[in-house]
Structure formats: C-alpha cells, structure tokens
C-alpha cells in the first residue's frame, strides 16, 4: 500500500515536470527493428554566435541546432543527389563566393529552363522572419527547403526518388541517425532532410567582420570610416544634422540586418495600373491588389558580392542601382511613398552611398570553413 502511494506521488510529480519541460533535443522515435541502432545518437547542441546588436535568434523548438544536424544539412546542401539527373545541388544557385547567390540574373535548372527570378542571398537566413522568397510565399526555412527538389525549373526531381537514394547511400543513413536519432534507414524522410538543410542555413550568420560591424557593432577603435563612407552613412540613414540629401534607404533596408523584411513597391516595374505588373510579386501571394508589384526588401549586407540586382537581376552594378533610385523610379499608386520625390543625389553623393554599401561586405562569411563544400 505504502509503495503504491509513493509510486503515485512520484508519477504525478513526474507528470507535472514533464508537462512543463521544454524538450530541447529530439527524442528517438520508437520502432520495432532498426538497422541503425548500433550507431550512437549523442546530439550535441550547437551554440550559434551572432554579432552584438543583432535581434534574438528564433529557432523552432522542434528543430534545435545540433552539430550533427548542421553537418548533415551541409552535405545535403552541396550534394547533387537531390536533383533528377544528379547534376545540380542547392549550391549550384547559392554559392558561397556570391554570398550564396549565383551572380546570374536568373538561374537555369537541371532542364536548362530559367526561372523568372534571381537566386537570393542566404546570408542571415535565420532572421528572415517575415516570409521567404522575393514574394514571401514560404514561411520557414524548413518549408522552403522542400520546394527546390520538385520545382521543374530547379531540381525537377521527386522526394520519393531522393529518399530512395538517401536510404541506399553508404553514408547518409548513419548521418541521419546521428542527427535525428532514427533507428532505421526507413525513417529517412523529406521532413528530416529539410530540417537538416534548415539547420545548416541558420548558421549562415554574419561574422561581424565587415567594416560597418567592426566600427558600429564592435566599436573597434582601429577601424575608421573615411569621410566618403560617413557621407554615404549620413544619406543612407537620413542623419538629422547632416546637410546632405536623404537617400531614404534605411526605411526599407534598416540596420542591423539592412532589411526590415518588409514588402514594398520600390518603383522597379513600369505598370499603367496595379493590375499590369509583369511580376505581381507579393500580390500573387496575398491576393490583395494593393500588394501587386511589391517584393521583399533584401538585405544589403554583402551587396557588393551579389550582383546582378533586383528580383529579375535587371540591374548589373551598384551604380545602376543608385541611378535607378535617383532617377529611374516608376510611378504606381502603391509606389512606396518614400520614393515619390526624386532623391536628388549628385554624382559625388551617389558614389558616397556606394562607398557606404561596400562597408557592409563580410568576406570572412564567404570564406567561413563551416559553410564550405564538404565534398
């Protein structure tokens, strides 16, 4: 009788603790057989460092960062095994040297067909909290990672084929075991593959080594901005006591990420009415006409490395970008109100803004060995 009591006490106590516990590590699912059971599952949390002044990381509870999860994600990201003819990997369009873009206006998929939009930088993808893609149609890195494999203008494959290949592979089953604790190769799934890729993408964070970061985030006394870079800074951020014109940039590309993650019509496409944009962008996702022709303002970190520019890669250089903002903006009813009045930057001032943009270049990120091709 006494024992029953203690047991009851213990159990109810336990149930209380469990109900409130925050599951940090994925638990191995229960199965009857298991060809991977002998491989140890010892998940080691990965402590991701972000520069000071960055917003807090938002990592989904069901996909915590682990050393083995990230490593699996890195292999999958660089492995052409994901594409139908095994020629294309994520990294074909997202290359480290281009801050994880391909430096093309639009990218050819395995069939040689080009999509209509330009590959996006994955720098600080962990902080893209307001939708992914130029139009925000995907909400999480996990959900996004499922899409390229089956996209006909990208990898043109099916997940069934990919999963078969991964299950039959010499290395991957053990890597999935170490990353997620599965007991059997049968449990390899697209969801786990996507989780691993998402973990790898989340560690693609700024190193804090750009000139801007060293000067303004780390307050490194050895780093000085030139007069020109400061003039660019003043115009970019519309500093109040500066006599220079307001370049308006920060309203949409604000520090520290150099994006607000918002959707805007920055006047790129010419359209007689809100129904006439060649690419409806955000409007096609929300169904609201007011959103037609809006795109997500991308980060300007590493912008010097990601030419060509804009969702269709129509602008080749940063000079063309500034010329566009200064004198090429197309009017539409939903043109962002910050860009209606011409900026009025002189040639010198345009160069100054460009000089400032170059202070956002983080070459240590591009050369980070953690992010490099493992093959």
């Amino acid at each position, binding site marked *: 009788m006494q024992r029953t*009591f*203690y047991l*009851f*006490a213990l159990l*109810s*106590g336990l*149930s*209380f603790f469990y*109900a409130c516990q925050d599951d940090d590590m994925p638990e191995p699912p229960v199965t009857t057989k298991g060809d991977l059971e002998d491989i140890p599952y010892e998940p080691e949390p990965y402590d991701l460092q972000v520069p000071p*002044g*960055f*917003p*807090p990381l*938002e990592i989904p509870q069901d996909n915590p960062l682990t050393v083995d999860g990230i490593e699996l994600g890195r292999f999958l990201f660089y492995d052409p095994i994901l594409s139908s003819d095994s020629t294309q990997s994520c990294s074909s369009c997202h290359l480290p040297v281009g801050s994880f873009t391909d430096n093309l206006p639009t990218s050819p998929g395995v069939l040689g067909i080009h999509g209509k939009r330009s590959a996006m930088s994955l720098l600080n993808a962990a*902080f893209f*909290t*307001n939708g992914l893609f130029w139009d925000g149609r995907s909400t999480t890195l996990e959900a996004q990672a499922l899409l390229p494999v089956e996209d006909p203008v990208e990898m043109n494959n099916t997940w069934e084929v990919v999963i078969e290949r991964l299950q039959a592979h010499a290395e991957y089953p053990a890597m999935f075991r170490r990353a997620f604790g599965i007991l059997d190769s049968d449990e390899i799934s697209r969801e786990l593959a996507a989780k691993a890729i998402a973990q790898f993408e989340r560690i693609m964070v700024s190193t804090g080594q750009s000139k801007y970061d060293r000067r303004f985030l780390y307050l490194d006394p050895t780093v000085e901005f030139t007069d020109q870079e400061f003039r660019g800074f003043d115009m970019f*951020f*519309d*500093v*109040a*006591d500066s006599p220079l014109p*307001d370049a308006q940039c*920060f*309203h*949409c590309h*604000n*520090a*520290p*990420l150099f*994006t*607000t*993650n*918002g959707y805007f019509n920055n006047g790129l496409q010419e359209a007689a009415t809100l129904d006439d944009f060649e690419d409806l962008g955000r409007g096609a996702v929300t169904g*609201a*006409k*007011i959103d037609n022709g809006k795109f997500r303002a991308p980060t300007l970190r590493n912008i010097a490395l990601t030419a060509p520019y804009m969702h269709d890669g129509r602008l080749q250089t940063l000079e063309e970008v500034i010329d566009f903002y200064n004198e090429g903006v197309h*009017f539409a*009813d*939903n*043109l*962002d*109100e*910050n860009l*209606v*009045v011409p900026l009025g930057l002189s040639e010198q001032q345009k160069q100054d803004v460009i000089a400032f943009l170059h202070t956002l270049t983080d070459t240590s990120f591009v050369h980070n060995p953690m992010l490099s091709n493992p093959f």
Partner: protein
Amino acid sequence: MKRILFAILPLFLLVTSCDKDDQNGTVELHFLATYDGAPLVMLEPYDYTEGISILFQRFNFYLSDVALLKDGKETDVLDIDFVEFDGIDDANKAMAGVALPTWFEVPAGDYDGIRIGLGVPAGLNATQASDYPSTHPLGMVSHYWQDWNSYIFTMINAKIDTNADGLHDDGSVLYHCGSDEVYRSKTVNLPISVREGENSRITFTVDLKDLFKDGNGYLDVVAKPNTHNINDLAVANQVMDNFRDALIAQE
C-alpha cells in the same frame, strides 16, 4: 495525510496552471479610422485642402500603458501593442476596423474610465528593435529610427496630387512622430462594465483628417512634407496633440 497531499499537490498545480479565474471578464480593444467622416481606405484618394488630393499608404501607431479606471484606481490592461491600418484596402474592412487579437482578462466590475498611451513610453523607448524577437510589437525594425534613438510612435504616410492630373506623384507626406517628447496619454471618462466570463469591446475611433488640424485650417503638407528632423518636433508634437484630442472611446 501528508503523503496524500504530497501526491495530490503536483496534480493540483498542473490543473490550476491551466485554469481560468472565473471572477474575471475580458476586454477587447477595437479601432476604427475614418477620413473626413468616410471609412479610411488605403490607396483611395481623398480631398485634403483646396487643390490637394491625398492618398494614404500607411497609418499605424503604438498603443501603450492601457488601464481601466475605477474610483481613481487602475487595472492594467496592456503594456504595449501596435495598431495598423496599412492593410485596409476596401470600405468593408475599414468599417470592420482593427481589433487587437488578445482579449485582456480583468476583474469583472463597473469601471468609470480608461487610460491609453499613444506611442512608446520612455522606459521602453530606451530599448531598441533588435532587443526583441520579430513577433514582439517592439521588434519591428521598420519602426525604429537609430538616429533619433526612438521608435516611430505614429506613422502617417501618403502621396499627394497637386496638379489635378489624377496621379499622386507630386509629393509625399511622411509624418513619422517619435521621441519621448511626443508621447501622449489620454484618459477618457466612460462607463465600462465587464461581466464575469463575458467580453466587453471598447472601440476607439479616430478621424485621420483631424490629425492634420492647424488652428482653424490644416497643416500645409506641401511646405512641410515630413517630420524626419528630430531637432524640429513642432509638427510631430502638433500631430500627436491632434491625435490625442481626436480619439473617441465608446463601449
């Protein structure tokens, strides 16, 4: 006996932590915006002053420090939240208004007033957007202005047509009001009864045109198109005064 208690206590905790206090009711905060009496719809042209047509693209603001009042005593309702009309693209949505998604739990009873703050109170305004997760109202980088060391409390963005060609491409109105000096608080005497287990909706109505009031007329938006200079808060102060005065509360 002790043993039973020991056994039951954790279970009890587990259950009560999920339980609602039934002495309470809830209040819902609801907002309606009009322009010159008409429902406020974004990208819809409105007459401003003689010869100027105005097309709004954003109207949003921080709401803070909300409390119900009763015999001079306060019941806290809300620390900070954000209200935006930016997505209102037709008259039906405008007439439905914007309601904060949370219903705030307060003791049931008859209150005699409500206090609300317009903007971000000084304590919170000393923090910045990157201190918060993106889901927090103060985590919006778009509403933090580094150079001001302040949030943008109220944002009114519009474009104007001054040459009557139907295109609102002749100028913009960018009234971004921020910094501690422009914070406003308003107390409204209003009987609000909160019934046990029931929700009471409190509706605030604001006519956006009133925010431009200037003496007997309206602000000259051509001469003064923006409030971007932190060293010149005259217009920002005036707009926030107008906002406080224009806000009407009803149950």
